[in-house]
């Protein structure tokens, strides 16, 4: 990096907020998806909105790409640095700025950890609903970028449901306030567009959150089935009966084994485990739990337990939330996949995954948010066995194609990032992607904010939409389209 630019950046954050030594930079070379690694030229740790603005202005003037980073727990490579670019970490912007209990709002900085939001208001009977499995370490800024989900979004919605407004540093360094503490601010819903844009539209520096009153009672039912097909039938039965549980999770035998090995959640050893959580007024939950119990038994449940105390519930959830990491106990390497299907396609997809796995000689453990059709197949392999890694990758991609063919999505909560950008053309037609890119061009005409992510290829913002006009760079022979 040009030493003069480095000097400008140092002047903004001071030495404490600038990392340039290769050893320290290595910490930032990847996020939770570790098979992609790029060493950034520098990492900046601003501690205020003004510092973020100043850094982004320097990048904008010098044409340096930047990647915002929260805790780096993302699973699609969204925070993967860009070559010859800088990483802007929001880790030091971690203050809770305002708690407004009567109106159930909080204003936080992006580096605040997801679980800290709930912890701050738990004593007042509130919680922050989006609960990705990494909630004890992941940041709100990262959640905003990825539109993070979690087990309870079946009932409570996603990050986007709970973000009412944002203060955003745009890719030219200017500041914009999107949405607000009140609902339906006049104008386009740019908050809705920004959430889930994976850092490609700017950097959020303040986030207005909606918090939710904790329900009177929460019961979690654990039902053991002979197979995931039986468990799937129970899910259909529950939804068909007109219930909207807070969460419905499913694990297959391999995932159960892994969770047992790792955290001893005391799960029954079975072919398909269902976890159904109902919350609300006690009388309502108790009445509905009886129905859930009956539906599960009718669908062949061999064993049913209901966790009622917080401690019992915590144990039940511990196994589920640890499932990704737990798979490390039963396989040296694995790919965490994230696909979505219409829920009714589940049995068909399960048999297909099983068939493909058997064909390729690769085991697949399955963990689902079964209520909303979000699958997390864990494709297990051993890198030391020649050809297995490749076969696993092929299988993981094939599973996503099956999701698309079933009318679903290539990602339910992990994001597109670096990992799945080439799959975008399989899910969307060219005009769809081109239309999304118009949004990007409106926010970031120079394409400096996380420029290589989400889309299979960048769109040159000088283009006139619709008709083909060669971009000035193309005419000058600097860039070409392919």
């Amino acid at each position, binding site marked *: 990096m040009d030493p003069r630019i480095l000097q400008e950046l140092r002047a903004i954050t001071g030495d404490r907020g600038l990392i340039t030594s290769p050893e320290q930079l290595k910490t930032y070379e990847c996020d939770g998806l570790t098979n992609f690694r790029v060493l950034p030229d520098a990492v900046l740790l601003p501690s205020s909105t003004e510092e973020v603005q100043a850094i982004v202005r320097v990048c904008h003037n010098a044409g340096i790409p930047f990647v915002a980073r929260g805790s780096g727990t993302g699973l699609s490579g969204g925070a993967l640095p860009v070559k010859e670019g800088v990483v802007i970490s929001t880790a030091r912007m971690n203050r809770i700025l305002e708690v407004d209990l*009567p*109106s*159930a709002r909080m204003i936080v900085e992006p580096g605040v950890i997801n679980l800290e939001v709930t912890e701050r208001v738990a004593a007042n009977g509130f919680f922050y609903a989006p609960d990705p499995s990494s909630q004890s370490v992941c940041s709100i800024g990262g959640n905003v970028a*990825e539109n993070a*989900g979690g087990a309870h*979004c079946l009932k409570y919605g996603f990050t*986007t*449901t709970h973000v009412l407004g944002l203060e955003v540093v745009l890719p030219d360094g200017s500041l*914009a*306030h*999107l949405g607000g503490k*009140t*609902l339906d*601010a*006049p*104008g*386009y*819903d*740019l908050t*809705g*567009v920004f*959430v*889930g*844009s994976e850092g490609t539209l700017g950097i959020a520096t303040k986030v207005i959150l909606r918090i939710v*009153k*904790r*329900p*009177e009672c929460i019961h979690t039912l654990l039902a053991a089935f002979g197979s995931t097909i039986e468990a799937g039938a129970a899910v259909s039965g529950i939804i*068909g009966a007109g219930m909207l549980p807070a969460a419905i999770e499913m694990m297959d035998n391999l995932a159960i084994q892994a969770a047992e090995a790792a955290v001893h959640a005391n799960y029954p050893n079975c072919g398909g485990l269902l976890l159904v959580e109902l919350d*609300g*007024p006690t*009388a*309502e939950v*108790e009445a509905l739990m009886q129905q859930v119990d009956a539906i599960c038994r009718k669908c062949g449940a061999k064993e049913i337990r209901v966790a009622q105390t917080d401690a019992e519930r915590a144990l039940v959830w511990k196994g589920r939330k640890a499932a990704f990491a737990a798979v490390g106990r039963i396989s040296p390497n694995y790919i965490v996949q994230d696909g*979505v299907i*219409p*829920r*009714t396609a589940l049995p068909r997809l399960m048999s297909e995954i099983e068939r493909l796995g058997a064909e390729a000689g690769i085991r697949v453990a399955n963990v689902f948010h079964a209520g909303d*059709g979000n699958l997390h197949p864990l494709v297990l392999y051993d890198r030391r066995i020649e050809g297995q890694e490749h076969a696993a990758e092929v299988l993981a991609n094939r599973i996503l194609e099956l999701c698309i063919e079933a*009318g*679903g*999505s290539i*990602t*339910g909560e*992990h*994001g*597109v990032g670096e990992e799945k950008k080439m799959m*975008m053309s399989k*899910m*969307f037609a060219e*005009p769809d992607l*081109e*239309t*999304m890119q*118009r*949004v990007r061009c*409106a926010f970031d005409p120079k394409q400096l904010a996380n420029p290589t992510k989400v889309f299979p290829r960048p769109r040159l913002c000088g283009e006139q*939409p*619709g008709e*083909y006009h060669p971009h000035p760079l193309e005419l000058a022979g600097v860039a070409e389209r392919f």
Partner: protein
Amino acid sequence: MTLADEANLFDVAKGGDGAKSAPSASPAGTEIGAANPWEKLRTVGTPDQWRDAGPKDNVAGVQPTIVFEPTNEVELAMVLRYADSAGLSVIPRGSGSKLGWGNPPIRADLVLSTVRLNRVIEHAWADLTVSVEAGCTIATLQDTLAQHGQRVAIDPLWPEHTTIGGLLSTNDSGTLRIRYGGLRDLIIGVTIALSDGTLASSGGKVVKNVAGYDLPKLVTGALGTLGVVTRAVFRLHPLPHNVRSFTFVTRDAADANRFVLAVQDSKLAHTGLQVRFNSGAQPEVDIRFDGTDAGLAAQTETLQKLATPAGESQSNEDVWHARQHLFGTAPFPPSLRYGVTSARPTASTPGDTTTPAQDSKSTAIAKFSVLPASIASTCEQLRGSTEPLNVHWSAVVQGTGLGWIRLGPANANDIRQLLQTLRSKLEPAGGSLVVQYRSSEIPEVEAWGNPGDALPLMLSVKQQFDARKTLNPGRFVGGI
């Protein structure tokens, strides 16, 4: 859809299957001559889909020329593209029930009516989703969904008239919002036609999906200024088995607000919570529950344990139509909205000396948004400013802080003044006020208020989507 596809696109619009080669008369690639742009447009579809616009088609006082009713989204996109390249402005329209919302258009040439795009495309009841065309009315959609005990959890104004496209474009929401969120929380996929003829889809058919930008949210509430919604996909909720509602008469606004906050702070799982204000009367709070018999009994008990205001009664479901009653019993026919066939209100014309009629029969309706804790102070403000002028007012405010106020009948200038005063009080506190109806005698009031420092970004988005300002020009915030 790109320009290269246009030959096929034209073929489809003509009823061909698109796979055959384009007819030799295909206009693909040809720009439309300035001489008579309509001639070219009228090659799309059949003559019965075109008609000259009449007085009933006027848009907030501006008279359009022609109405086109596409029978499929390809026709819609094509006509839009032709209009755009000919420099004609386009007003997308569903039933027209809320066509008066927003500022009057700067121009209005073509009305693009979605009335024939009215199918429920797919109700995947077991997956709790529905895909529906833009011209389908809410009532028709809900009737279809009810066959499987489901609904889109939204209760907008005039469901028998309101179309999906109009609902999305105006982002109307009712009493269910407090439990199920607004349209932005229910829409999961959308297809839009852009003014250059591109047909683009975003989102999908599954509830959980983070692939690509969330364009369904971008077009929700955009008043048709970015593209024309041709179809949408929604997540569904089960219809409630039993519903029970209660009404409480409170002492005053502060008492009503306290009660609303107490309910919000309780463990109750209400599906509706609103305050009805009427100048001179005590505010009334309505609360609604649904669930099993056991659950309803328990919630009723919990509700009574809360420090409840004096008068309580089990109420009928009609109280939940209070917002619609504010507007009147039916959507205003277009001719009553801004005066019959008069030209656009001329407030912006320099040297204009027209003085509005000084009668006392004018009314206006505005939507406002405040924090739930500020409902009382807002209504006190309202009372304080209306009393000296002796202007009657009524309001319905949801527990979410979204409210609707009706001012009048009263003097037109007084109403205008009140709207501006209220807005100037709300905006600095982070709230907003949007004028949704005003009788024709009331001088023009900017409909939206101040969009803040995000306006430049909104203008860039508009520029990217509709560079020639073809769609609903001048109707949205900041002159968009």
